[in-house]
């Protein structure tokens, strides 16, 4: 099942925890922006687990 990771920008502190646990470099945190690259994502949801504030959700697509 393919997932899309959605961020709640109001909650995100750009702390980089999700970046560290992503096996595929599908997330990066730039100085002012959280970015997701769907084509690299394998749907493991490690990022969702690791976020200290719960700013991420995995939405199932197709």
């Amino acid at each position, binding site marked *: 099942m393919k997932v899309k990771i959605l961020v709640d920008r109001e909650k995100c*502190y750009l*702390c*980089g*925890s999700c*970046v*560290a*646990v*992503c*096996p595929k*470099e599908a997330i*990066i*945190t*730039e*100085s002012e922006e959280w970015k997701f690259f769907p084509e690299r994502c394998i749907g493991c949801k*490690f990022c969702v*687990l*690791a*976020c*200290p*504030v*719960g700013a991420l959700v995995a939405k199932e697509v197709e």
Partner: protein
Amino acid sequence: MELHYDVVVVGAGIAGPILSRNLAKKGYKVLMIDKKAELGSPKRCGEGLGIANFKKYDIPMDKRFINREIYGAAIYSPGGYKIEIRYDRVAGVILERKVFDKMLAYYAARAGADVMAKTEAVGLIRREGRIAGVKARHEGEPLEIFADVIVAADGVESRVARWAGINSFLPPHELDSAYEYEMIIENFEFDPDIIHLYFGNEVAPRGYVWIFPKDEDRANVGIGINGDNPKTAKYYLEKWLKENNIKGTKILEVNVGGVPVGGFLKELVRDNVVVVGDAARQVNPMHGGGMAEAMEAATIASKWIDRALSEENLELLKGYTDEWWAGEGQKLLRILKVRQISEKLSDDELDAAIQVLSGADAERIAAGDYREVFKALIKNPKILLKPKMLRLLKEAL
């Protein structure tokens, strides 16, 4: 714009400035960049640092970044038992990281390094199959920084090492997910001269809640939990505050971050790319402190970069990997073993252990020197360890 240096350092937290300072002092042309507009801010830290590190890493004790002197620690079990370690001299300090990081960068700059805030590394420059430098961006303007050695001191979210082909992926279990308030604490007793650590499977799964006092009534109150926990660090901190009737109505900062606690990088050097600090996952896996480890790694790495550049032999960079793994690496692996055991303790076992351990025992365990303490625990008639725990302890001996 195109720039040329001997060494480019990505990240101006703790590891980056120490390494840059050491190499600038040796006369190398060093550039340190950081994506932050304001070095040190926002902080992602409890700000506790042992006093010995100032002398060891040649850092002045400047009042501008020292909030409070600390004389020891108290460790609390879920059932309310306590171990207290107290010295009659200063054991550590609670820093102001915003000022500390900036001053470390200042010391690097004063030693001769160039420093550029608000400059983000976005990729590597490759020429003829070699890594030739770092592509960066400053206020949207592209920059090409050519250098003989590239240092990844870019923290937990490190990308530089991955660009060089080093797999620095950290499984979520090897990350502590952390949440912290810098706040005023009212109606809750705590001695502001020591740090306080609260353990328990319901309190902080795998980790602990900390109070690091910055004033008599002001402290960093934070939590670290296992990064694969379905609940959030924020959830557990809010719960602990509520259960202890601590009102969260005077919050000065919210700090959020991840702490690598176990996935120490095997490969610290690839070609001319050198990885240090959180980027290399060099953190004490028992207490999650990474500043001293970052300073140590930066010190060893700068020594080998100096040798490699002065002898014009980049192969020598690997000396850093070997030296770090032979010393610090072995120590951290022992500490990791203790953590892997302690994270399996039930609340009853935690209560029992904290009742019988002395402050000196706790310090020895935290330093990875656990054999004698474990032997005594196994023999202690007051402790009823579950067969599984007994087996784990025996295996560790």
